[in-house]
């Protein structure tokens, strides 16, 4: 490994070093705020290293990883999301306070939290840099294992958080099965092509022309099932609401953004380097999955009274919208650049609004309570009690619903543009129908916040929103509106991250 490769890999190395450093730091009795600060510092250093690596990109580092602008863009997105989650976690975990089983161990326990957060970010970065199935599996498991523990993290700390443990177990078992299925798919592809590199596989495949060979289709189907599980697309979505509900809300934000974003970026690279969607059978199945996700995700959200579950189903639908973009690219009628741009923009939008929505929920919740403030009824009259938080949440929800002047609308506009270009009217019809259904639960959530407050709910009033949290959430709100009104700079930036894939 020469110097150039080292520099290119430096962001990944920095995250790793931060995780190790944090473990060492935890040996000493330090205050939680130091741990939080150290984590942030590590992530900031990682971002800085990206600027450095950016000058050299693209660089292939070992047969496993490639650091190009595409990878760096998504890595930056993941690291930024990690930073937001870290910032929000500080106060949230601190509010555990009196409920800790063993008071002396609090600091050490929150050290594990931050270590796992960093390893999750590391796994996600490995995923978006991967160019080889071994790296894919490494990244996926690193991300997955960190998240299993994080999801159940509060269970031993607070006796009341039994749902956390259930969610963690559920995620562990189902995710384990999905990984096994994915591995089997990879094995079948290896049996057919004799290589594990995406680009090499794509070359052999396009030369051999065996688009509908049974082994290849079976292998791809298994591989994509595993990936769809991670993206929680219908019909692999069963775990999502339970995990979202059971996990501490900051971890939910991490699962919703870092995990799904990284896997989607990986899917983009995988599909375009291997040409996985050139098989018509796979295409039609994925189209059905997209339609089912858009419709069923939105429909099931209607029945929920728990805001974390509502957002879980809403995320299923949003990944469904993103899949429309991917499918448009796969049938080769639309320029890859546009696909990359649309998917990148949509993911940025999705990150901003998801982090914002879960951020507000985390500010209103306490880790020490039996569950987060996640019942719709608890939000009744929020606007009259905490207008700032209610307005931020309203903006995030309107953005998720795709109302203009928010970033979510530009994202949806991109999906429509791509869909129209590829003439996928059926998928677009599902998009319109899904969005119309979606409006119902987003608006119901919004209207609850503006209803007159009942006296009994006054006790859940946040006494005080920490200035740090307020700052982070306000920044997300500004970003939401700024990108919604002036998307050009971000669009140009994403355009510069396109790869010469072919």
């Amino acid at each position: 490994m020469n110097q150039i490769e080292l520099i290119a890999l430096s962001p990944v190395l920095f995250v790793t070093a931060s995780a190790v450093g944090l473990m060492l730091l935890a040996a000493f009795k330090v205050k939680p705020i130091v741990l939080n600060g150290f984590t942030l510092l590590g992530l900031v250093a990682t971002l800085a290293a990206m600027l450095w690596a950016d000058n050299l990109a693209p660089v292939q580092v070992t047969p496993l990883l490639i650091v190009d602008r595409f990878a760096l863009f998504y890595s930056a997105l993941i690291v930024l999301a990690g930073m937001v989650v870290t910032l929000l976690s500080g106060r949230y975990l601190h509010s555990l306070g009196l409920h800790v089983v063993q008071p002396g161990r609090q600091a050490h326990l929150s050290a594990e939290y931050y270590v796992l957060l960093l390893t999750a970010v590391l796994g996600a970065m490995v995923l978006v840099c991967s160019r080889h199935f071994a790296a894919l599996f490494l990244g996926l498991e690193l991300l997955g294992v960190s998240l299993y523990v994080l999801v159940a993290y509060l269970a031993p700390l607070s006796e009341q958080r039994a749902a956390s443990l259930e969610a963690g177990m559920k995620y562990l078992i189902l995710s384990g099965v999905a990984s096994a299925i994915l591995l089997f798919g990879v094995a079948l592809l290896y049996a057919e092509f004799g290589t594990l590199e995406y680009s090499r596989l794509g070359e052999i495949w396009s030369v051999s022309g065996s688009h509908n060979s049974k082994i290849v289709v079976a292998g791809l189907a298994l591989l994509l099932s595993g990936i769809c599980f991670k993206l929680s697309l219908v019909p692999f979505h069963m775990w999502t609401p339970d995990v979202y509900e059971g996990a501490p809300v900051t971890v939910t934000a991490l699962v919703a953004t870092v995990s799904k974003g990284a896997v989607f970026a990986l899917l983009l690279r995988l599909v375009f380097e291997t040409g996985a969607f050139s098989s018509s059978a796979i295409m039609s199945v994925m189209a059905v999955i997209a339609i089912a996700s858009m419709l069923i995700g939105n429909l099931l959200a209607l029945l929920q009274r728990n805001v974390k579950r509502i957002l879980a189903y809403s995320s299923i639908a949003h990944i469904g919208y993103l899949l429309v973009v991917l499918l448009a690219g796969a049938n080769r009628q639309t320029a890859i650049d546009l696909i990359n741009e649309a998917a990148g923009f949509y993911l940025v939008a999705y990150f901003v609004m998801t982090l914002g929505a879960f951020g507000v929920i985390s500010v209103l919740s306490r880790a020490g309570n039996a569950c987060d403030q996640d019942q719709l009824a608890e939000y009744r009259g929020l606007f009259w009690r905490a207008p700032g938080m209610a307005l931020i949440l309203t903006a995030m929800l309107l953005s998720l619903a795709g109302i203009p002047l928010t970033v979510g609308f530009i994202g949806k506009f991109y999906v429509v543009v791509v869909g129209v270009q590829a003439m996928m009217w059926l998928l677009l019809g599902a998009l319109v129908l899904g969005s119309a259904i979606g409006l119902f639960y987003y608006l119901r959530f919004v209207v609850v916040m503006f209803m007159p407050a009942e006296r009994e709910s006054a006790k859940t009033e946040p006494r005080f929103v920490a200035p740090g949290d307020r700052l982070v959430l306000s920044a997300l709100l500004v970003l939401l509106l700024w990108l919604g009104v002036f998307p050009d700079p971000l669009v140009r930036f994403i355009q510069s991250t396109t790869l010469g894939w072919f």
Partner: protein
Amino acid sequence: MMLILLIMLLFVGGLLVWLADRARLADARWLTLILLGCGLGLLLFGYANAGSVEVVGRQWYLGYHIPWIQRFGINLTLAVDGLGFVMVLLTLFLGLVAVLSSWREIEHSRGFFHFNLLWTLAGVVGVFTALDLFLFFVFWEVMLVPMYFIIAIWGHENRTYAALKFFIFTQASGLLMLLAIVGLVYYQYQASGILTFNYFVLLDTPLTAQVGYWLMLGFFIAFAVKLPAVLVHSWLPDAHTQAPTAGSVILAGVLLKTGAYGIIRFVVPLFPEASAQFASLAMALGVGSIIYGAALAFAQTDLKRLIAYTSISHMGFVLLGVYAGNEEGLQGAVMTMLAHGMTSAALFAFAGAIQQRIHTRDMRQMGGFWTRAPRLGAWVLFFSVAALGMPGLANFVGEFLVLIGAFKANAWITVAACAGLILAPVYSLLVIQKVFHGEPQPERQLTDAGTREVVMLGMMAVITVVLGLFPHLILDLVSGGLSLLPPDAPVSGDLSVGLGLLQEPIN
């Protein structure tokens, strides 16, 4: 320049009103009145001094054009022709009426209420002035959200349901329009290689008959929901009934007109062949609306619901006139839009006033109010008579022109539409009879109209009379360009010139 200033005035003014109210610096109502007054002044002053530019055979004033999202060739292109100007004028005027009509009604968080009101009006002004289809769509949606809040927060007993229904109907149909807009832009891009959302360029898009028809439907459905035409009207009675008075005034007076405006400005010129093909179906829908709205209005016991159904009936005339496809029909449609804006706003203001006094909208609990409130009664009688189409008042001019136009296009449909003229007196006089005549209800305390209400209703009455006696004031302003482009109209010739001029702020 004046238009962007006007829109910014409403947006920024809305924020100011809210903040001022929170800080208890000023009364939100007076501040809103002053802002709207400034807006009216700005518009009239700008219009009086504006130079015009001719594009596609129409005079455009107060143009404004700067790039917005360059990735997609989206510009902030604003300009009004006579039609747009009249509509903006109506919007600002009814904004004033809305504030006056809710003067005492809104008791909690007045600042936020007037913020929403101003933002709705800003969105509507945007809709009437945007000449970039993306921008138009943005304004189309922007006017929804604050109106949703107005209904959902300050509305009556069933407000949540009504607000949600209103929003979902409009937004879902709006998404269809977004698909159609993007489709249209894409076909233009394929044909010419220019990626743009500019209205004037898109007028020129070559479309096959089938594609044109589908795209036209995408636009038409969105506008028909807003209008509303029968079949997609079911949000209207709920929204209008549940909204607070100011909300009902704006909904009936202005928001419905955006649908009609959309058809006149976009559907017919963008898709002339498809529209011609669709005309008889649309006219049939119009007649359906006229008769259905009138029949259902007759069956209502809820005062606001009754007025809401009459709106469906009157807007049916607009649809009929637009698709008649001749100058008379279109002028009649525009005149009906203005006249209906006045009468429906006045009647909703009256319904709000009654509800505030006796806390019910149920007409079975009213009666004999004439002796208690003769001034109010006289004004309501005036507007009811205007609504039923008394010659000499604006509504008559509008509906008469529509019928003349429609008769040329399709005689049998027009004959059916004339039934509306018979039904209108029935439901209009029903209101007078049930509310003002009959046995007085002794337990209902009722104060007569105060100065504020007399001024408000008086202004609208004056406009109704003036438009009825001198319709050419408006018809001259909006004619000329309203004769829609025939399919073979020379568009491209002066297009580049016009666009070039629009690049510069005109005044």
